[in-house]
C-alpha cells in the first residue's frame, strides 16, 4: 500500500493528493498564493514570480513550477517572500499603463487586486515603455499593449486550448511584446475572435470591444424601435456582477432592467434556438437520407465557423447551413416581427446580449444583411450589460422581476440548454428522436451527451439504426478531431462544436470570475432552467408552430431557407505580401500568381509554381511576365488555385497552367 506523503507548509504537514505543483497544494490549505501567469488549465510558465515561497535548503522558489515532494519544508510568508513579491509586483507595475480609473478592467483586474492585497503603495521605478497605439480594428477585441504585463496567459490560451496561435511573444529582453505575427493587427491574422485571451488576461491589455455607446444612442432616438434578445448563457452569469452566485437565474431582473433602459421589446434567443433546432434537426434527417456530406457540424458558434473557413475549407459542406440562433432572431425580428408591429425594418434596431465576443463579428458578416438592412445591429456582452445597468443607475438587486415579451420571448427548455456544451446536440436529439421514431420522447434528457470532457462521444439508436455523435469544446480539441475525420480514423454522423471551454456559459463576454466553481454552477443553472419550464422540446413551442403556419411555411422550405439559412466561404488566415519569384518591371506585365497558402500547398501548388516560373524563364519571358507566390485566393476548397492576369483557375494542374499561360501570352502578342 502506498504511504501518504507529506509536505510541511508553514509548519503543518499537508498530504500530497495528486497535486501537480506546490502552488495547488498550498492553495488547498486555504492560503492564497498570488499569481498572474498561472492558470490551472494552461501549461506552467513560471514568469511572473509572484508565487515565490521559501523552501528549506533550496531558498526562494516559484511554487507553480515546483512539484510536491515528501519532506519539503515550505514557508509561504517569510519576510523575504513578502519582500520579493512586492518588488516583483512593483517592477511589473512600473511598465504598466496605470490608468486604472478609466480602465474597463477596473475592479475585475487581477493586477489591481493583487497590488491592493499585497500592499504595494508606491512604484519607485520609472517606465521604460514607449506608448503604442491600440489594436482595435476588429469588431470583437481591443488589444492595448501598454497594459500588457507579459504573463503569456493569452498566448498559451490561444495556442494550447484553442490551437490557433494568433498571438505570441516577439523580440527579447526589454523589447519583448505579445503581438500577432509581424506586429500586424488581429483582423489581419487568423484570430477567430473567441476572446478567451480576454478571459484570462489579468489586466486591461485584452478586453472585449464595447458597443454600449451606439446602443444607448439608439435607445434615445425617437424614430427607432429597439428590440433586444437575451442569449441563454447570459441569465446564469449576469447576476455575478451584482453579488449573485454563479448559476443563479436572474432572467426576470434582466428583463426589468432592459425595460427601464428603454428597450421596447425584450425577447429571448432561446426562442430562435428552438427555431434553429427545427431547421437543423430537419437538415440532419435530410442528410442521413441523401448524399449530402456527413458528419454534419453544428454552425451556432461563430468562432468555430470562422475556424473551419480558415483551417478546413474542404470541410465547409459539413457545416449546417442553419444560421445561428442570434442571426435567426435578427432575421425574424426584422422580416416578420417588424411588419407585425407596423414599422419599417429600417426603423427597427435589433440588439443582442451575448456571452460572446465572436457574436459581434458574426453580426457584421456580410451574409447577414437582408435587402440592405443588417439582421442584428449591435451586440453587447454580458459584461457590457452589467456596465449599462450601472451607468443607468439601476439597482439590480432590488428589481422586481418582469416577464419576457411575446411571441419571441417564449421558449422551451431545449432552447435554454444551448448555452452548455452538449446542449445543442441534446436539443437536436429531442427533436430528431420524435421525428424519426414517430413517437413521443418520454424523458427528454440525454445524459450521455452531457459532461465536462472536451471530446465526448455517444451513440444513439434511431429507427433501429445506430448513429455516432460527438460533442467537442475548445478548438484544440476540434483540431484533433478534424485530423481524425480527415484520416478516416473516426467516423461520426453529427458533431457539436463550441469554441469556448465548457461552451457559451464560459464565453469571453461573461463576467470575469476568480471563483473556481463558476463553470459548473453556470452549467447547472441552465440545466435547472430547462427543468423548470413546462416544455422541453423545440417542436412543442406553440409560437413556432404558429410562425411556420402563418409565415415560414414548411420546416426547411424555400422561405425558411431564405430567412434562416446561410452559406460559408473559404477564408484566408493572414494578410501578407506576395513573394516575387520572377520579376518584371514592365508596366503592362502579365501577372501570374500561384497560391501557396496551406490548402493549396498541401495540394501541390509549390510544384506548379516551380513549373510556371521555369516555363517563363525557359521561354525567355522574364521581361513581360511576373510570377508571384501569394497567400490565399479564398478558393481553398478548390485548390490549387492560380491566377493568370484576371483569369482564376482552380483545381489547376501543370498542363492546364502551361496552356493557360501560353494562351495568355499569345493573346497579348496578338493584341500588340
Amino acid at each position, binding site marked *: 500500500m502506498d504511504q501518504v506523503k507529506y509536505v510541511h507548509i508553514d509548519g503543518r504537514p499537508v498530504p500530497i493528493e495528486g497535486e501537480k505543483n506546490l502552488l495547488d497544494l498550498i492553495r488547498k490549505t486555504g492560503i492564497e498564493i498570488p499569481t498572474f501567469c498561472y492558470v490551472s488549465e494552461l501549461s506552467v510558465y513560471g514568469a511572473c514570480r509572484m508565487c515565490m515561497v521559501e523552501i528549506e535548503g533550496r531558498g526562494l522558489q516559484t511554487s507553480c513550477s515546483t512539484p510536491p515532494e515528501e519532506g519539503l519544508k515550505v514557508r509561504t510568508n517569510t519576510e523575504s517572500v513578502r519582500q520579493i513579491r512586492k518588488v516583483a509586483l512593483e517592477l511589473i507595475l512600473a511598465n504598466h499603463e496605470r490608468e486604472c480609473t478609466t480602465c474597463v478592467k477596473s475592479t475585475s483586474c487581477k493586477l489591481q487586486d493583487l497590488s491592493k492585497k499585497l500592499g504595494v503603495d508606491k512604484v519607485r521605478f520609472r517606465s521604460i515603455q514607449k506608448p503604442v497605439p491600440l489594436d482595435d480594428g476588429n469588431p470583437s477585441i481591443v488589444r492595448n499593449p501598454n497594459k500588457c504585463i507579459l504573463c503569456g496567459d493569452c498566448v498559451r490560451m490561444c495556442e494550447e486550448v484553442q490551437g*490557433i*496561435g494568433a498571438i505570441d511573444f516577439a523580440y527579447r529582453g526589454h523589447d519583448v511584446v505579445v503581438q500577432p*505575427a509581424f506586429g500586424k493587427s488581429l483582423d489581419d*491574422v487568423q484570430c477567430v475572435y473567441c476572446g478567451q485571451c480576454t478571459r484570462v488576461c489579468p489586466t486591461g491589455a485584452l478586453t472585449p470591444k464595447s458597443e454600449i455607446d451606439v446602443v444607448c444612442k439608439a435607445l434615445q432616438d425617437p424614430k427607432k424601435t429597439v428590440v433586444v434578445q437575451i442569449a441563454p448563457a447570459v441569465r446564469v452569469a449576469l447576476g455575478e456582477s451584482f453579488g449573485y452566485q454563479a448559476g443563479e437565474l436572474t432572467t426576470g431582473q434582466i428583463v426589468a432592467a432592459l425595460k427601464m433602459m428603454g428597450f421596447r421589446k425584450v425577447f429571448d434567443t432561446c426562442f430562435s434556438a428552438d427555431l434553429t433546432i427545427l431547421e437543423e434537426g430537419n437538415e440532419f434527417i435530410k442528410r442521413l437520407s441523401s448524399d449530402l456530406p456527413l458528419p454534419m457540424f453544428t454552425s451556432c458558434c461563430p468562432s468555430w465557423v470562422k475556424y473551419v473557413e480558415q483551417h478546413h475549407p474542404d470541410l465547409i459542406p459539413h457545416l449546417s447551413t442553419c444560421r445561428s440562433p442570434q442571426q435567426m432572431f435578427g432575421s425574424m425580428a426584422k422580416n416578420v416581427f417588424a411588419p407585425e408591429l407596423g414599422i419599417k425594418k429600417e426603423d427597427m434596431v435589433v440588439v443582442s446580449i451575448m456571452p460572446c465576443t465572436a457574436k459581434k463579428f458574426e453580426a457584421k458578416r456580410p451574409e447577414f444583411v437582408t435587402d440592405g438592412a443588417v439582421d442584428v445591429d449591435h451586440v453587447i456582452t454580458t459584461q457590457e450589460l452589467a456596465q449599462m445597468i450601472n451607468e443607468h443607475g439601476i439597482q439590480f438587486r432590488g428589481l422586481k422581476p418582469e416577464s419576457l415579451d411575446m411571441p419571441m420571448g417564449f421558449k422551451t427548455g431545449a432552447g435554454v440548454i444551448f448555452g452548455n456544451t452538449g446542449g445543442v446536440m441534446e436539443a437536436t436529439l429531442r427533436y430528431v428522436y420524435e421525428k424519426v421514431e414517430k413517437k413521443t420522447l418520454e424523458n427528454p434528457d440525454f445524459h450521455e451527451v452531457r459532461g465536462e470532457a472536451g471530446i465526448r462521444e455517444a451513440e444513439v439508436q434511431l429507427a433501429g439504426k445506430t448513429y455516432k455523435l460527438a460533442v467537442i469544446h475548445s478548438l484544440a480539441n476540434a483540431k484533433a478531431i478534424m485530423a481524425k475525420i480527415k484520416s478516416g480514423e473516426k467516423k461520426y454522423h453529427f458533431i457539436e462544436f463550441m469554441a469556448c471551454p465548457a461552451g457559451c456559459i464560459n464565453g469571453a463576454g461573461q463576467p470575469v470570475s476568480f471563483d473556481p466553481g463558476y463553470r459548473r454552477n453556470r452549467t447547472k443553472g441552465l440545466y435547472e432552467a430547462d427543468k423548470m419550464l413546462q416544455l422541453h422540446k423545440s417542436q412543442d413551442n406553440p409560437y413556432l408552430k404558429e410562425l411556420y403556419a402563418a409565415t415560414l411555411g414548411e420546416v426547411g422550405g424555400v422561405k425558411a431557407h431564405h430567412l434562416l439559412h446561410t452559406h460559408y466561404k473559404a477564408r484566408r488566415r*493572414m494578410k*501578407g505580401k506576395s*513573394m516575387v519569384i*520572377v520579376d518584371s518591371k514592365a508596366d503592362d506585365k502579365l501577372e501570374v500568381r500561384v497560391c501557396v497558402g496551406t490548402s493549396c500547398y498541401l495540394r501541390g501548388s509549390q510544384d506548379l509554381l516551380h513549373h510556371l*516560373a521555369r516555363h517563363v524563364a525557359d521561354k525567355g519571358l*522574364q521581361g513581360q511576365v511576373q510570377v508571384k507566390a501569394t497567400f490565399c485566393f479564398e478558393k481553398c476548397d478548390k485548390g490549387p488555385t492560380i491566377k493568370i492576369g484576371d483569369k482564376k483557375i482552380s483545381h489547376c494542374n501543370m498542363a492546364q497552367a502551361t496552356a493557360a499561360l501560353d494562351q495568355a501570352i499569345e493573346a497579348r502578342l496578338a493584341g500588340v
Partner: protein
Amino acid sequence: MPTVMLRKFEKVCAIIEKYGNDPAKLIPILQEVQHEYRYLPEEVMIFVATTLGMSPAKVFGVASFYAHFALQPKGKHVVRLCDGTACHVKGSDGILQALYKKLGVDAQKATTPDMLFTVETVACLGACGIAPVMVINDVVYSQVTPERAVALVEEIAMQEGAGHVSA
C-alpha cells in the same frame, strides 16, 4: 537562365524538404533561409510557417528573439562592433558613435539608404585580448580606434565608388 528570385525560392523549398518539414528544425531552417536572402523577409517566413504547419506568430517570435536573425535587409558590407565588457571598457562606444556619425545610421536604422553598410553591435566575439574588436564582413580588426574604423569604412566606400560616405 532562371532568375535570382526563382533560384532563391527553389533553395528555400529544398531546405524545408531537407529538414522533412519538421517544426522542431525551425532554427536551422531559418538560418539557411537567411543565408539565401541575407535576411528573413516576412512573406518567406509566412511560407516557412505554412510548410511546417506552425503559426506565423510563433515563427516570427523565434526569428525576432535571436539577434542572429535579421528582419530587415542588410547592407552589402556588415560591420559588427563588439560591445562586450572588455571592448566596452576599452572604448567601443566611441567607435560606434563615430561609425553612426560617418554613415548616418543608428541602432534602429542600422543600414545606409544605399544598402552598402549595416552597423551592428554584438555582445562578445570572444577575442577580449585584442579589444576593442570590429569585424567587417568576415575580416577581424583588433585594437580599433574611432579614426581607424572610419578609415576602413571609407576605403570600402571608395572601392564601391560611393562618394557620399566621405561627404
